[in-house]
């Protein structure tokens, strides 16, 4: 799984961080998403899918191929 985040869409809600704290963080200065792990391990897949689907700004994209 490969994770992409779009900073220009992110509204800083932090929902992704609450869903998958090992994969996402927020910048201290403006709350914009920080991707900690571009290719998370399999144990993170569920959390990352959850994060992508609850992000209110649709700022997280997953490509599931490999």
């Amino acid at each position: 799984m490969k994770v992409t985040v779009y900073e220009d869409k992110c509204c800083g809600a932090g929902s992704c961080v609450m869903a998958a704290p090992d994969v996402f963080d927020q910048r201290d200065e403006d709350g914009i998403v920080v991707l900690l792990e571009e290719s998370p391990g399999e144990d993170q897949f569920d959390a990352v899918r959850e994060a992508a689907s609850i992000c209110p700004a649709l700022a997280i994209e997953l490509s599931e191929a490999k």
Partner: protein
Amino acid sequence: MNGPANGAGSANRSRSVLVVGASAAGLATAEALRRKGFDGRVTLLGAESHLPYDRPPLSKQVLSGDWEPERARLRPEAMLADLDIELALGEAAVSLDAANRRVKTEHGRELSADAIVIATGIRPRAFPGTAGIAGVHLLRTLEDALRLQSELSESCRLVVVGDGVLGAEIAATSKRLCAGVTLVGPQAAPMELQLGGEVAKALAALHVEQGVDLRPGVGVDGLVETGGRVSGVRLESGEVLPADAVVVSIGSTPVTEWLAGSGLRVENGVVCDSQCLAAEGIWAVGDVARWDHVGLGRSLRLENRTNATEQAGVVAANILGEAAPYAPVPYFWTDQFNVKIQVYGLPSAHAATEVVEGDPADGRFVLRCTENGRVSAVIGWNMPKQARLRRAEVFYA
């Protein structure tokens, strides 16, 4: 009222789900069902003919023209196709038979399912007697946003009637495009109800600094029309504010007329139990749903974006038999000028407040609201991350 057992009971038998309303809450319910492994039939019925799109950008990036409307789509087409749902768009439900779980549509179709999810949202209230006057705007749909945007120009004098979240945000976004923007409302400062007095005052100062003409604490008596087009806003004081265009943002009403005769209880929203169950096999989600919040000990209806998705997750789980109460910390954000405001919990005018991080003088702070010895809300002003980290302090988090 149906007890939890009813919801769980019907849930285990659910082989088909019909979601009425194809926007944030409706689509999120369908997605959550699939994510949780539901492989039965899912139908998503929506009155609008567009593919599902998101509303927060309508008063921000779409209104300002920074985004093409397509960017506000909730999901790319390929992703919708992967969901394997039946998408019936441009077809409104006109009635519900709750006992038999059957929905009639405006095209005369009858759809039934084991579980029905009501996700029909809200619609803005119009100013009485202003229908059909050119230059008067409401903002809920993509069409509304584009219509309003086409009016905004350097020479336009815009008056926004209503000082809630949406009114304040529209004023802020429009100020970038219009020379003259006036924000009129009954409160002492914009968004006082949602922010409490202190932060609302800071917001008022921001608007004034950015050139918005604030008219706090005044009621609007009516709109002035000249030759079929709006030409001004008449205040209760008798003063008339000249206007080339007017946005009316004075609150909204849950979209529930179609539920008349359904047997469901409707009181400012579809009344649900703590699990968002309205009647056996009937659920409600998003802006239209009023449910019992067990953490707060009262019923609540929220009109915000993250609620739509979060509640959808719980409704999907409950359709599949989980029987989980929905008891979130309410959250919304708004972007106005260069300020991002995040609100966790429910601020109020009576709360004691304390700056717990940053400094209002620096334009960045987190404010904590305490009521009856408990933290009732946390508000971030240009400190989204720091505000989120304190979300857990809200007493029912």
